[in-house]
């Protein structure tokens, strides 16, 4: 199995980065954390823009850095594509020449991705003859992505590529980034502090805080770890559930989604049957009942659940997080008072009422 292993220790005057992680090298791997946690530095270390005196970086079987053996492959010889926060296009070259810059410097035998493919996927045909300054921010960033892709990299690093764009432009580029994974099969390390982007894109996540990795793994798992909840903004805490569209209920205007623990009903989604859809169930939208309600409830999604873990009880805070198992992890935020009233304990069988499902 393809794997990316990284291990760096670098000290800057005001900052210390010490990371060590191994993740499957496939799909979009998000590096997430608050500003100043070392996300960009980590990316620069992976690319070889910064050299850590202690460290190693291995992608599949390529050793790009191993300081214990004195190995450090210079940046220009690594098969890495890098998309910076700003597009960094060369202002003296037209778009086409910008795109070809890396392609020309890639050995013929290593060229897997063609200009036609990139132009098609990124929809930039009509921009080729223009100078970078005449493009919008979103267009420039698309060219920057294309330019990096044309080196046919074995790993694509993206450093908050959408952070300089407004909401509309972000919406415009996100689908392109999602297509990169399926079209070109290049593992992408995607740095962001925007949870929405990450939930939308990532398969694997590496959580960073204060220069160290505090969690890494499949996104559904990491995002339902109660001990990491302080890293996630209050309103965003919630389990991610991968579902497939099972049925369209025309009469009531609902869509039925199937997942590993059963079904969820959501307002009608214009999707094909069988299409995959990742939804987030926010912890604040989940309530717990100890036995099935004697009365009918207006809540459609009522699922059997097992209590897995009770989060930290803080006497200064009225709420507590509960991790449930409904065939996949589910988080619920309830009051301490309810916790006491229901006498919840791990292993207990309960029901979870899901009031809303966030769809993206």
């Amino acid at each position, binding site marked *: 199995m393809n794997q990316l292993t990284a291990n760096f220790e670098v000290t800057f005057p005001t900052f210390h980065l010490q990371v060590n992680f191994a993740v499957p090298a496939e799909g979009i791997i998000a590096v997430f954390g608050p500003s100043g946690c070392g996300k960009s530095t980590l990316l620069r270390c992976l690319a070889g823009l910064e050299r850590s005196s202690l460290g190693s970086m291995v992608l599949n079987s390529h050793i790009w850095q191993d300081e214990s053996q004195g190995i450090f492959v210079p940046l220009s010889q690594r098969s890495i594509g890098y998309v910076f926060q700003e597009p960094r296009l060369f202002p003296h070259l037209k778009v086409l020449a910008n795109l070809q810059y890396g392609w020309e410097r890639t050995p013929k035998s290593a060229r897997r991705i063609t200009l036609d493919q990139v132009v098609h996927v990124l929809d930039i045909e009509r921009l080729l003859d223009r100078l970078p300054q005449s493009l919008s921010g979103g267009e420039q960033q698309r060219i920057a992505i294309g330019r990096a892709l044309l*080196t046919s990299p074995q790993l694509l690093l993206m450093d908050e590529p959408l952070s300089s764009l407004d909401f509309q432009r972000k919406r415009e580029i996100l689908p392109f980034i999602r297509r990169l994974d399926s079209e070109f099969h290049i593992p992408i390390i995607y740095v962001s502090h925007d949870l929405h982007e990450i939930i939308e894109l990532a398969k694997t996540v590496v959580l960073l805080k204060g220069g160290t990795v505090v969690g890494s793994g499949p996104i559904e798992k990491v995002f339902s770890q109660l001990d990491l909840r302080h890293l996630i903004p209050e309103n965003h805490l919630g389990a991610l559930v991968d579902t497939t569209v099972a049925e369209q209920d025309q009469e009531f205007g609902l869509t039925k989604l199937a997942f590993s623990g059963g079904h969820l009903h959501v307002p009608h989604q214009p999707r094909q049957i069988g299409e995959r859809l990742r939804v987030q169930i926010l912890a604040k939208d989940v309530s717990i009942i100890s036995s099935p309600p004697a009365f009918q409830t207006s809540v459609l999604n009522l699922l059997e659940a097992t209590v897995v873990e009770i989060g930290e009880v803080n006497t200064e805070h009225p709420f507590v997080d509960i991790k449930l198992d409904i065939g996949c992890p589910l988080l619920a935020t309830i009051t301490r008072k309810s916790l006491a009233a229901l006498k919840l304990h791990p292993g207990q069988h309960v029901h979870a009422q899901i009031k809303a499902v966030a769809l993206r």
Partner: protein
Amino acid sequence: MLDLDLGPLWLTLQLAGATVIVLLLVGTPIAWWLAFTSSRLRTIVEAIVALPIVLPPTVLGFYLLIAFGPHGLIGGPWKDLTGSALSFTFTGLVLASTFYSLPFVVQPLHGAFEAVGKKPLEAAWTLGASKLDTFFTVASPMAIRGYLTAIVLGFAHTLGEFGVVLMVGGNIPGQTKVLSIAIYDHVETLEYAQAHMLSAGLLLFSFIVLLAVYSANRRLPIHVT
């Protein structure tokens, strides 16, 4: 008809041309280093490079004269190496002019490289370009206006040189008798007509060169500031 010797004019153009070429070769690495180093020596080097701007040319000329002597700091090794002296020669003048006009080439280049910044260079490296490749295909084209300014200032400043030439070059026709010296000679001997011709010629030439450069500059596609 006036008896006008055009030798000094030709010599001056040769001197300015040769000096600019040497200056670009020497000044580019210095400017690059100044723009990107984090070394503490930076300020010291910056100050040394700027010295010719504030020093009276005669002071610079005086020290260069001593250094260029057959037993001097530069003249000694030069004589051992080439077998000829440096002072009162054309080569000596080129070398002296290089010191004299150094800040006028280094400073615009330094500014231009700083304006380019590290970001496009990093982008080029990630696209597989070596450092030298990046310099020629990204940094230099982006700094083209800096180069243009450096060439014009270096050339013009060398054209107008007087004090340093007088000190290290003397007044040898065909060797070191440049335009400014020739004009001075004509004035000394009250040949105002010849002085006028040469002065007006230099004035017109300088104006045309500057005009050509600035209008070319305006039409360049790169605006990096």
